Structure formats: structure tokens, C-alpha cells
């Protein structure tokens, strides 16, 4: 199946700093999403971005499908940005609907 690798595994930021999270995937995708899992466990859909660039407030994401990677940018980080960020993809080769998740990047923003 498709492989999804996220880096870095852990990230510690000072409040106000900017950061970039990366997601590499091993095959062509129909779907790519970025999720934020908050301390209560809820998975929040940040971006649906199989290609191109999107922005939502202080967050933005870019997916270069031809090179099989996606980047999530966090600008002016706040303590509420802490949590685990997951990249998840749906392979074009897949005959079903299984979303494959990366292992996540744990972000800690310190005041």
C-alpha cells in the first residue's frame, strides 16, 4: 500500500514562531488531507488539498502532487496550535476508500 512519511516527528516552538511540517507519499493520490488532533483527541480537518495551495488564517498548505509531497505552514504559532498534526492520503491505485495516515508530527508551542 501507499506509504506516508511525516517529518519532523516532534517540534517544539516558542509562541510567535513559524514552522513547516512535511508529508511525503509514495504514490499518486486522489485525496490528501491535513488534520490537527487537539489535546482532547478530536481530529480537526485543516485542509483538503490533493494539489495546489490553500490558506486558512495563520495556516497554509501546499501539495506538489507530481513530486509527491505536501507542506503545512504554521505562522505566528500560538499555544492553541499544540497537538498532533496528521497527513492522510487516498491512493489513486486504491479500489476502496481507505485513508492512509502518517505517524504524525507532535507540535508543542510554549508561551
Amino acid at each position, binding site marked *: 500500500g501507499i506509504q506516508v512519511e511525516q517529518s519532523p516527528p516532534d517540534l517544539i516552538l516558542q509562541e510567535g514562531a513559524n514552522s513547516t511540517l512535511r508529508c511525503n507519499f509514495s504514490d499518486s493520490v486522489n*485525496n490528501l*488531507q491535513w*488534520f490537527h488532533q487537539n489535546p*482532547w*483527541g*478530536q*481530529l480537526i*480537518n485543516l485542509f*483538503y488539498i490533493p494539489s495546489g495551495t490553500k490558506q486558512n488564517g495563520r495556516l497554509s498548505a501546499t501539495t506538489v502532487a507530481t513530486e509527491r509531497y505536501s507542506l503545512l505552514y504554521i505562522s505566528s504559532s500560538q499555544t492553541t496550535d499544540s497537538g498532533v498534526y*496528521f497527513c*492522510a492520503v487516498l491512493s489513486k491505485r486504491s479500489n*476502496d*476508500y*481507505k*485513508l492512509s*495516515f*502518517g*505517524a*504524525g508530527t507532535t507540535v508543542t508551542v510554549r508561551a
Partner: protein
Amino acid sequence: SQTIHQWPATLVQPVGSPLSLECTVEGTSNPNLYWYRQAAGRGLQLLFYSVGIGQISSEVPQNLSASRPQDRQFILSSKKLLLSDSGFYLCAWDRANYGYTFGSGTRLTVV
């Protein structure tokens, strides 16, 4: 608008007891539905998915089963819980060009 409901939020059950977790989706028809599990400190694992009433696909052999008695209802069950069934259970549905949306999750502790 579409919403997904999942309950209960937390559950503590003794080993050998039965389990029933319910997930419902509102505001759409014939959604694809999914059950995922997340063990503590680990990634998400797809357990079951359903593309229609009575249609269930299982991803991993386990002590759990799933049913879809109605179009927008997805139930996760077990006849006898094991300690290893502890974890965070998430229901999800997906729609074209938007991706997956997850419920708020059920944290199950088997004691």
C-alpha cells in the same frame, strides 16, 4: 449542513463485557462510513468501512464487529471485550472534494 455524532465520549468496561458504540451522520444520504482506532501515542488504524446499508468491510481480524442497520448509522460492537480493545475509537464519513470528517471519538478503557 452535515454533522457527525458519536457517543459515548468515554467508557470504562470490564473485560468480557459487551460493547456498542454508535455513530450517526446528519444532512447527507448514503455516506461512506468508517471506524478507526487509535492506541495511546500511536497512529490511526482503519477497522471497518461501509459504502451502504448492510455492506461492511473489515480491515483487520479482531474481537470487534460493525453493522450498518440504517443509511446514516454505523455501530461498532463486541460480544466480549479484551484488555487490548482499549483505545480511542473514531467514526468518520467522507464526501467528494471535501474529504473525511471525524466524530469527536470515544475513549474506551477495558479494565
